[in-house]
């Protein structure tokens, strides 16, 4: 039925959904319970594609996203290309940080996985702190992309000046550097191809009345340190072995991370950003470690994004119930906390009047449960967490790849009956 809507009614629907979403975020009571569709590979599988195809076939993925959004009619969606469609670009780069379907023996129909490793060594803290951009360019990029290894030869520009800048051009004509530069251009062209398909697909859905829930991705400084720089083991040991250097590095990240996020969101003309968190959960670090290492630099990131007029959708992975009293210290009506296993009822108590809550139909229920169980769970969430507004219904960490379509449909359809 959505297919037949005229463009003007698309605009009306867009306004209506956008208002519903912003009302929930800014803690006003919306007309009914809003929903967001976020998934990695579920939309592709829903349309009969493998994970591999989703990563490589931009057009089919766009068609799948369109079908999923039209079938489920969420109040906003997270564009799926940005989450998965980078297979061809990774091939060009000889990318090292992911294992992905159909690559190096991984099956065609499983999601990609991040390879946890110390991409920055403990003894490189000082290099990073002195010159983060130089470190990323000379050392990090060559490690995460085999084809970019020659970037390690690029001039050390802070010490190369005046006519030495002119002389330094020699570097770019070295055969191996030239090859790396050509790879950058080819990878860039491939990414533009993907972006063009994504933009068209997103605009099409916006015209049909569906707002976008995320125009970019940001991070917590500790997660960057632990996931992308030091590796999980390295970061945990650094809490003892390199405490001051870690804090120093995160001070820099707290400035640099939002800078990148704001640029991405503004370039896309949006106002929402997605921030998946990996290390904030209960049980990983102690309350004291959390308030020393995790929360203060992350709070700086949040405040900077909010100051720039961006609503952060913060995905608190795992169970963060014990963190609630700490993380409620943000300006009211500006943040969305997207919870996976956190006790939603305690979250409502702690965050009422401060933060909009998003979540959290469990992955297990969507995969192995029944539509009735899903509806019962959504009803409970609406009654308690939805009380007085400030709640957006979603799956725990988005719709899991293996979710049964009838369960997902039940969730989105039920939300439409949840009228305030």
């Amino acid at each position: 039925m959505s297919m037949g809507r005229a463009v003007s009614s698309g605009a009306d629907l867009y306004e209506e959904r956008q208002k519903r979403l912003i009302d929930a975020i800014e803690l006003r009571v919306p007309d009914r319970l809003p929903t967001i569709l976020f998934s990695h590979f579920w939309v592709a599988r829903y349309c009969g594609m493998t994970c591999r195809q989703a990563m490589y076939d931009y057009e089919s993925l766009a068609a799948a996203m369109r079908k999923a959004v039209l079938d489920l009619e969420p109040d906003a969606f997270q564009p799926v290309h940005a989450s998965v469609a980078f297979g061809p670009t990774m091939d060009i780069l000889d990318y090292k940080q992911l294992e992905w379907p159909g690559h190096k023996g991984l099956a065609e129909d499983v999601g990609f996985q991040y390879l946890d490793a110390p991409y920055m060594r403990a003894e490189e803290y000082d290099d990073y702190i002195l010159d983060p951009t130089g470190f990323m360019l000379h050392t990090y990029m060559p490690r995460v992309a085999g084809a970019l290894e020659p970037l390690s030869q690029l001039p050390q520009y802070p010490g190369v000046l005046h006519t030495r800048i002119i002389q330094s051009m020699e570097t770019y004509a070295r055969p191996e550097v030239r090859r790396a530069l050509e790879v950058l251009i080819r990878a860039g062209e491939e990414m533009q191809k993907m972006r063009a398909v994504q933009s068209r697909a997103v605009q099409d859905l916006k015209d049909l009345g569906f707002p976008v829930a995320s125009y970019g991705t940001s991070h917590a400084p500790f997660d960057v340190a632990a996931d992308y720089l030091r590796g999980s083991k390295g970061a945990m040991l650094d809490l003892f072995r390199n405490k001051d250097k870690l804090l120093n590095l995160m001070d820099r990240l707290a400035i640099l991370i939002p800078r990148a996020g704001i640029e991405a969101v503004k370039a896309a003309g949006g106002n929402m950003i997605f921030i998946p968190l990996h290390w904030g959960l209960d049980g990983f670090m102690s309350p004291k470690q959390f308030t020393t290492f995790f929360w203060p630099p992350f709070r700086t990131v949040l405040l900077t994004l909010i100051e720039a007029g961006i609503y952060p959708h913060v995905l608190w992975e795992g169970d963060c119930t014990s963190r609630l009293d700490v993380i409620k210290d943000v300006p009211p009506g500006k943040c969305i906390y997207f919870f996976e296993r956190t006790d939603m009822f305690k979250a409502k108590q702690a965050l009422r009047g401060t933060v909009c809550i998003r979540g959290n139909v469990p992955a297990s229920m969507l995969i192995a449960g029944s539509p009735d169980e899903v509806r019962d769970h959504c009803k409970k969430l609406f009654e308690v967490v939805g009380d007085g507004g400030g709640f957006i219904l979603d799956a725990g960490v988005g719709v899991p790849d293996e979710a049964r379509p009838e369960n997902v449909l039940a969730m989105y359809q039920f939300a439409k009956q949840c009228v305030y």
Partner: protein
Amino acid sequence: MDEKGKQLVQHIAEMQEEDAVKLAREMLDAGYDPVRLLGHCREAMEFVGKRYEEGEYFLPELMLAGEMLKAIGDMAKPLIKQDTSGGTTAGTVVIGTVEGDLHDIGKNIVTFMLEINGFKVVDLGIDVPISNFVDSIKQHKPQVVGLSGFLTLAFDAMKKTVEAIQKAGLRDNIKIMIGGGQVDETVKNYTGADAFGLNAMDAVSLCKRWVPA
């Protein structure tokens, strides 16, 4: 316990890595019995484990304790002449991250805590093919099998692994526990496991319940 031994236990239990490793080196250099020294390490690990169970220590402390144990073990073990591996164990656990999943932090922490608690743990690693679990059960005859998985794709891999164990006629003699970020009662029932755990303490208490001392 002698003064040096007490001090070593304290350094390890208090997360004083440099002091602990330095003192262990000094003790061994002065001719301290390496078997006895490793006994102190075990005692320190019991403190660490207890503090973890009580919510005072978390993953970073377990990780650092593991590092200290390894560093001291690497110094002491070459000095040990007789075989000390023949001690009694609380029981045997075969553990691994199921096929398709490459995550290992949770599994490693569970392994560490089970070992502290006296279990012999056979760790099959990550992305473990179903047949490896079956073969390992035949070989090691564990009382417990632990299936780990962080991703939702692990649900099906766990289910298939449990089915294969059943098919091989090995299911009746073992208990199967599953663990990982997204497991719960629904996943336990879906996979046919006996129990699920959300953290390493859950794994230890399940094993202790299933394998009485």
